[in-house]
């Protein structure tokens, strides 16, 4: 079991939500104080270094035009972390390749980051959440198709060593691809793709890439992992899907005191659901029930019950985790959203240390990396 510390790098000093319509896309950057922003990255990077000291791995992402994540360039942050860490794996999850115009550039960035990190990069690709569409001016239709053409082109750029090749695809053109440097890891860094749908997971399983699902909870995680296994088997990779191909991302807070609360994500429908991003069936259904309101942030108790959060003392976190793990048939990576903007530096560090010293060893014992996924057990209530 690997635990990855992830920070959304949020900028929390915002006006009252009642004063704005959307926290993402449109909120003016006059609310960003550059000195405070710089100081935030001093602490976020320090927290990642603490995670490394404690034997955890490191994960980061990127978002655009939002105070909820003020890192708009994952590759830059990756490079910074590559030079202030030395042993943790560095996962970028992910490069939003449905929205990036130049996949060859993405291939170069990741190869270069891998050199800077001496081979510690795990490369993730994502479609991008719907409110990334507007900032990227990215067409909301055919995002899946663009994502997969980009991934194929990137992998080819990494693994082709005999000089230029050409690509004239449906969405991308490049006449002489020949990247320097090549990645440190051969044939290429481990590849992760995130998906919260069974069909998306199926495609990832067919490739054998690592698959991460985010905050899908008790109700929606099992079908996603089942989708992965179906794709893996259909592609002839064998019947057994190793546990370390699957990852689950949740909020985790491990401490004796209750300091956590989940942040607001106030976004109007036209940014949260651009036409074409979701399936026609989902949109038709949404139109009937008149989706216009964004869901309220759940309480900690509700989040724990849903399985999107593990919180409390180490014993409580362990018990919640075990129940969830057995319900979904297991996974090999826990991506921990251990900081979502409202936790102080000291509390965040405390959470990282507690997780690492009092939860990780038990997880390591109980869930060996050689396990096969898809073994379900329903735990009886304590």
């Amino acid at each position: 079991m690997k635990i990855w510390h992830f920070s959304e790098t949020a900028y929390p000093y915002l006006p009252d939500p009642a004063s704005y319509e959307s926290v993402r896309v449109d909120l003016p950057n006059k609310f960003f104080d550059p000195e405070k922003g710089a100081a935030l990255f001093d602490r976020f990077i320090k927290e990642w270094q603490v995670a490394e000291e404690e034997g955890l791995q490191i994960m980061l992402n990127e978002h655009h035009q939002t105070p909820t994540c003020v890192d708009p360039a994952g590759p830059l942050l990756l490079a910074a972390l590559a030079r202030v860490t030395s042993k943790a794996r560095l996962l970028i999850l992910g490069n939003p390749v449905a929205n990036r115009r130049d996949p060859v550039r993405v291939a170069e960035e990741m190869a270069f980051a891998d050199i800077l990190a001496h081979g510690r990069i795990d490369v993730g690709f994502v479609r991008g959440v719907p409110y990334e569409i507007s900032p990227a001016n990215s067409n909301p239709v055919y995002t899946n198709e663009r994502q997969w053409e980009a991934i194929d082109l990137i992998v080819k750029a990494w693994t082709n060593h005999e000089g230029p090749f050409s690509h004239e695809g449906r969405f991308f053109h490049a006449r002489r691809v020949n990247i320097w440097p090549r990645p440190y890891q051969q044939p290429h860094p481990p590849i992760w793709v995130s998906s919260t749908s069974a069909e998306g997971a199926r495609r990832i399983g067919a490739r054998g890439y690592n698959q991460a699902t985010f905050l899908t909870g008790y109700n929606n995680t099992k079908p996603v992992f089942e989708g992965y296994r179906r794709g893996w088997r259909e592609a002839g990779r064998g019947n057994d899907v190793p546990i370390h191909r699957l990852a689950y991302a949740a909020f985790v807070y491990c401490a004796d005191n209750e300091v956590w609360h989940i942040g607001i994500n106030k976004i109007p429908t036209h940014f949260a659901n651009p036409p074409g991003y979701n399936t026609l069936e989902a949109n038709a259904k949404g139109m009937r029930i008149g989706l216009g309101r964004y869901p309220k942030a759940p309480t900690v108790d509700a989040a724990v019950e849903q399985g999107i959060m593990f919180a409390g003392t180490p014993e409580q976190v362990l018990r919640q985790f075990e129940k969830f793990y057995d319900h979904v048939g297991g996974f090999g990576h826990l991506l921990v959203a251990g900081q979502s903007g409202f936790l102080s530096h000291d509390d965040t560090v405390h959470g990282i240390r507690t997780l690492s010293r009092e939860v990780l060893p038990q997880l390591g014992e109980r869930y060996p990396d050689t396990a096969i996924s898809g073994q379900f057990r329903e735990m009886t209530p304590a």
Partner: protein
Amino acid sequence: MIDASVRAGLQRQTMQLGETEIELFQGGTGPALLFLHGGAGLQQDAPFLEALARRFTVIAPVHPGFGASSLPFWLDAIDDFAHLYLELMHRLGLTGITLLGHSIGGWVAAEIATKSTSAIARLVLVAPVGIKVGPVDKLDIPDIYAMSDDQVERLLYAEPDKWRRDRTKMTDADLLVLARNRQTLALITWEPYMHNPKLKHRLHAIDVPTLMIRGAQDGLVSGEYAAAYAKLIQGATLTTIDGAGHAPQIEQAERFVEEIKRFAGA
């Protein structure tokens, strides 16, 4: 005496054009009028179409990706629609037609006319989009993808409460069509936004009489935009219909049909 086919409404058929299969509604008698619908899709039983069918043979295709028309993977632009309809006009042996386009349908009609007017007698553009005439840092057409449905409806209609559709009363099949139409509209209008940068440089070549119609309360296509558009087409006239927004053929159907009949000399 009202023609029986008109009372029965436009008749539906399908047509294969290359790799694309489109639905097509046709009815009425008289000179041919090809109607190219706007972003909301084709409302084949709209009163203005029924009225036009009393004076024209109305041919109203449904654009690829809208309604039940197919959408090949490679087909993603207004220019593709223009080529498709040039093929359609040729296949149906149409000559001397009135080409009538609304909104993005008007954009398609303008593109067609810059390629060939051999089958066209006259052109009518109703609240057309498709060119950019304003400055770099100001959208010519407000960003419909950055506002709520309610805000869009207010820009579309002089009387939004009268004309907006109640989605809770629509069938599942209708909602699926609605979702599909919105998706295809996004695909073809996303970037460059609502225009072809080249079109304004080609409009001077249109050599058939052109009428532009705009609703006075149109919040998407401004008076300045329409005037600039009309000015680029030789001899084009611009008529403004009061009490109508972006769809004067819906909100002021009678007045609209009179304008068409007058222009066509019918």
